[in-house]
Every structure is written in structure tokens, then in C-alpha cells.
């Protein structure tokens, strides 16, 4: 099974960042029904840099809020605990992989991820879904597998690029060289870090292959969001071509072809809102 291969590859990586204690603690607390917002805030505030990233993420992801959220404490009270956990995880990954070794432009990659987050949030909002901030996180983290390839598997990356130069598509090249998809790589890492199942499933889904017959709305929205971000050329991903999204997936995300103009405008507006988060890339 190719997912086993992905787990093997991830398991073999020696210098993977470990989840900070604070993040592990947040996950534990979120599962305890007696936890209060104050409890979570107390723990989060012990990690100054994580808190700072989380706050910037919150301000990017909650476009609906009329003012900037100036206090993380307030944000934690307003958001669901599950969303707070997703934000903590997203902030951790973002900080851990802000820059990287290798040939890829990490800034461009993260801008693309932020763009996917922005588009995902727009789509979730249009569907009147709650916890739209979660969708921002799904978009932000959807290409975690690419990070694994870039950071930790340089020899394989060279081989993959060699095949692409000969005309292979990225996904086929990746499977040929590594024995698994880049999505499975990301899911294996998310799993190793004990990410919540929905997040693992979004990170592990689609890519170039078609979705299985049953897929969640979260996956549909994240998939469509990536196509929107790519079409708008927000940052760069490892494949310069736009992924094909099938009608069933667009429909599951609640999108008709005539909606795409408005969706793009809202995504661009949301990117403006993400300014301070994007600034983190250039500090």
C-alpha cells in the first residue's frame, strides 16, 4: 500500500520538528469538557512566538470580524476550541517550515498556501458554514506533503524534477520515484504529529488524482480553493499547472461556474486582509 510507504518515508526522517509542549497541551485540553477559554489562553500565552503567529493567523482568517482582533485571549473566547487547536497546529507548521533548505522558494509556497486558505474561507462563508477559520487552516496546510519532499528528500526531489523535465506530470513522477503521492506524505506526517482526523484527511486528499467517490465537504472546498488560488497565481506551488477539479467536487463545494468571478474578487480582498500574516514571511 502506498500509504505505508509514505509512513515509512516520514518515519525515517531524523530531524523532523517535534510538536511543542504547548500545542500538545492545547490538544489535550480541548478534549477535556471542563476546559475553559481562560485555561487555554493561560497555556498559549506561555509560548510567545506561537501566540504571535496565532494572533496574526486569526486576523487573517476571520475576515468577517469588523475590527482587528487585538487580543488572543478574546479570540480564544470567541472561536470554538477545535478551531483554536487547528490554529495552533497551523501556526506551529508555519513557523517550523517558514524557510527551508533546498531549491524551492518557500515564501512563494507559503503565499500560495495562504491564498488557498483565503479561498477556502471564502467558499465556506458562502455556504454559511460555521468555523470558517478552520477552513483557512485546511487551506494553509493542504500541501504539507510538498514541504516534506522539499525539506527532507532532496535526492528524490532531483529525480522527480528530472522526470518532469522529460514531460512527466508531477504526481506521476512523484509516485514513480517515491512510491507514494505527495498527499500521502503530508497525511503521514500529520498523522505522526497526531493532527485531528479532519485535518489529516484534508492534507491527504486529491492532489492530481481524482477524489474517491465519497469525500467530505471540507475536502471539496479545500480542493476548489487550491484551484482558485492557482488560477489567481497567488504564490507558487510545485506544479505550475492548475489542478483539474471535477464538476462533482465544485458542486459539493456549492460553486457554479458563474460564481467564480465573485469568489475570486472575495479571495483577493481576503488576501489584502492577510497582509500582516504575509509579513511574517518577510521578517
Amino acid at each position, binding site marked *: 500500500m502506498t500509504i505505508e510507504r509514505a509512513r515509512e518515508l516520514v518515519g525515517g526522517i531524523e530531524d523532523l520538528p517535534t510538536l511543542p509542549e504547548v500545542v500538545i497541551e492545547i490538544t489535550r485540553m480541548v478534549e477535556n469538557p471542563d476546559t475553559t477559554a481562560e485555561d487555554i489562553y493561560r497555556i498559549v500565552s506561555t509560548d510567545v512566538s506561537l501566540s504571535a503567529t496565532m494572533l496574526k493567523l486569526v486576523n487573517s482568517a476571520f475576515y468577517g470580524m469588523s475590527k482587528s482582533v487585538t487580543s488572543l485571549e478574546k479570540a480564544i473566547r470567541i472561536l470554538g476550541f477545535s478551531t483554536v487547536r487547528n490554529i495552533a497546529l497551523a501556526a506551529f507548521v508555519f513557523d517550523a517550515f517558514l524557510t527551508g533548505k533546498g531549491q524551492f522558494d518557500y515564501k512563494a509556497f507559503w503565499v500560495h498556501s495562504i491564498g488557498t486558505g483565503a479561498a477556502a474561507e471564502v467558499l465556506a462563508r458562502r455556504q454559511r458554514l460555521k468555523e470558517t477559520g478552520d477552513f483557512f487552516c485546511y487551506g494553509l496546510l493542504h500541501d504539507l506533503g510538498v514541504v516534506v519532499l522539499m525539506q527532507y528528500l532532496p535526492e528524490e526531489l532531483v529525480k522527480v524534477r528530472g522526470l518532469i523535465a522529460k514531460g512527466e506530470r508531477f504526481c506521476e513522477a512523484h509516485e514513480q520515484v517515491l512510491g507514494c503521492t505527495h498527499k500521502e506524505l503530508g497525511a503521514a506526517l500529520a498523522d505522526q504529529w497526531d493532527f485531528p482526523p479532519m485535518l489529516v484527511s484534508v492534507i491527504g486528499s486529491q492532489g492530481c488524482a481524482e477524489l474517491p467517490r465519497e469525500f467530505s465537504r471540507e475536502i471539496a472546498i479545500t480542493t476548489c480553493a487550491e484551484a482558485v488560488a492557482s*488560477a489567481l497565481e497567488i504564490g507558487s506551488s510545485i506544479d505550475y499547472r492548475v489542478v483539474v477539479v471535477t464538476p462533482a467536487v*465544485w458542486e459539493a463545494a456549492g460553486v457554479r461556474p458563474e460564481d467564480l468571478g465573485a469568489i475570486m474578487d472575495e479571495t483577493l480582498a481576503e488576501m489584502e486582509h492577510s497582509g500582516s500574516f504575509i509579513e511574517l514571511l518577510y521578517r
Partner: protein
Amino acid sequence: MTKVNIRDLRTGMVLARDVEDDSGYKLLGKGTALTAAQIASLDGWKVIDVWVDEEKPAKESGKGAARETRREPSALEEARKRLRARFEGRLTNQWMKSLLAEAEARLSAPRFWRGGR
């Protein structure tokens, strides 16, 4: 030959040297006449410099009236070509077609995060 910034690359320019990323990996070979797809494919890789052949001046017309020199494709036209290259073979349903059309219409929309591009 002249050094060109990636964002100033135009289709038809001929590479005077290999294009490599900063790990020395060769992306495109010397002598390549750049297509929109190839320019788009450079996105995201840390490319240092791109060297292209000097463009030959337009042939002088023997006739009296001033002849229009070969029209340079505008930056917008180049952007449109690159965008279409991203959708090559992907316009398989109405949504994908609409995605391209709407993206094309927004090519001039300001993107503050663009930085170099």
C-alpha cells in the same frame, strides 16, 4: 547576451545560458526559445539569473516610409499567455473554463504580495 529579470521574460526570447536554480540544478537549457509554459514553470524555484540572447534589431525596410518595428508583446499579453499555459489540457469542464476566463479578466488586479513578480 543580456541578463533579464524573471518577470521581464518574454516568449520567444532565446536562452544564452542554462537556467539553474541556486542548487545548481538545471531547469532549462541554453538555446531554448522560451515558451509561455517554460516561463511559468520557473515559478517557485530559486533561480538566480537568466541570460538571453540580444534581440536582433528589426530588418530595415528598403522602402521610404518608416516601417513599424516588430511589435513587442505587452506585459499583459505575456501574462495572459502564461496563465493559459497553466490551464493547458485542463479546460475539461465549464468550471475550469470559467476559472480561466475570470482569472484572465483579473490579471491587472493589484497584488500587493507579489514582491518581485
